[in-house]
């Protein structure tokens, strides 16, 4: 579903000399569906991935907000369980990181800052974090779950204008998109209207579910509200790659339902 997110993360990491290795034979964490229907299933599906990472002595860099939250939950549960048994190895010792938290580490930020070749000056975006990279903070360890600023910092470093809005961490409706599409249209409709009101020309996110709901449902929302938004919804890493001059952005733009090329052309960015 989100090849453009995958490819742009890899392009940015290569440019910043960060070595990535895909987790071998990873399985789906079960997303909302698993924890809705069976707590133990949810934990064990995610725990399998954490164990594989541990066997390879690798930290997990997680692009998807839902996967991040579920993996982090499993990692903490594994650590807790192995602490409560006196013998045996300690499990869950690896780190589980969401992409933005990683890019916001000082040593990564400083590399990013000096490698920007094409500042995205004049491009105004609303940073949209959604739910699961932040909440609940006792799982995610998010320092500011009500007003996160990591993506704001990344946008500023590549020269973007960051729009202030109060919907940064409001829900897009997530997995209700299929069975209760009406609810997702309502929530994402509110988000689009708020972003435009804040002066945004685009929305910037780090969650594939949010990107999908905001981008692919936009035409329906426009029909429902009788308005035209045409608001591109970017992954933060697509914009970082664009500013670093790496990857193949034209291929990524072709994956979007709201075509970002007219906006980028007016800014001289494609």
């Amino acid at each position, binding site marked *: 579903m989100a090849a453009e997110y995958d490819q742009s993360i890899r392009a940015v990491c290569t440019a910043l000399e960060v070595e990535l290795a895909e987790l071998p034979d990873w399985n789906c964490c079960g997303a909302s569906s698993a924890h809705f229907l069976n707590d133990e299933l949810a934990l064990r599906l995610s725990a399998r991935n954490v164990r594989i990472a541990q066997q390879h002595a690798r930290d997990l860099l997680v692009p998807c907000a839902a996967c991040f939250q579920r993996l982090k939950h499993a990692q903490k549960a594994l650590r807790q369980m192995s602490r409560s048994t006196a013998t045996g190895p300690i499990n869950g010792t690896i780190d589980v990181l969401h992409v933005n938290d990683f890019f916001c580490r000082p040593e990564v930020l400083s590399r990013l800052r000096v490698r920007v070749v094409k500042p995205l000056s004049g491009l105004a975006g609303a940073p949209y974090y959604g739910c699961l990279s932040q*909440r609940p903070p006792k799982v995610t360890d998010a320092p500011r779950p009500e007003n996160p600023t990591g993506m704001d910092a990344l946008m500023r470093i590549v020269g973007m204008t960051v729009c202030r809005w109060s919907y940064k961490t409001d829900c897009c409706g997530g997995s209700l998109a299929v*069975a209760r599409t009406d609810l997702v249209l309502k929530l994402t409709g509110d988000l689009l209207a708020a972003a435009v009101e804040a002066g945004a020309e685009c929305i910037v996110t780090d969650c594939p579910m949010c990107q999908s709901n905001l981008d692919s449902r936009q035409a329906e929302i426009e029909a429902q509200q009788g308005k035209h938004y045409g608001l591109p919804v970017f992954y933060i890493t697509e914009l970082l790659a664009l500013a670093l001059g790496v990857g193949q952005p034209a291929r990524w733009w072709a994956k979007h339902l709201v075509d970002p090329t007219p906006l980028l052309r007016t800014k001289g960015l494609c």
Partner: protein
Amino acid sequence: MSLPTAPQHPVAWQVQSAVRPSSEFVELVARSGAQDVGRCYQCRKCTNGCPLASEMDLKPNQVMRAVQLGLQQEVLGSRTIWICAACQTCTTRCPNDIDIAHTMDVLRQLCVRLGVTPAEPNVVRFHRLFLDSVRRHGRVFELGMIARYKLASGQLTTDMKLGWELFRRGKLNFLPDRITGTDEVRQIFKETMERTA
């Protein structure tokens, strides 16, 4: 003495007219993994922050109170437990540190386990088919899952245009992406789903 007027909400009316508090349900909910519901003192912070409260038949704070009172049928038969998107805002803000979002998980699981007819059958269908796709392949095969959901829900023609737009852009794979550890994944399903069946 004037007669009480019926409040707008049907369940609230039931609560007002026939309350026989029982601790059985709150104990069942606690045994099933949500131990903190008793701490709720109805500040309504959960409901005020809930993005979908306006669509719910029982507001999140009412769910908490209904569990405390033992209104099992009203809670497990509510739309609320399936409309909740698990955004975790309530859990993050609760001043009594109640994991409200996880309580919703526990209530959904009880609804299924006890065979209560879910108020939002399509939501349950979707989650079951999503998980079945994970069980089969180790990862979700979106196209296959959506096709099965459409057959099961009877929503055959909705989102056809969107489906085409996604397919055209290469966002939906034609074939499932299988992992080599499917046996291991199936074993996890077998052990956990059978235990709660």
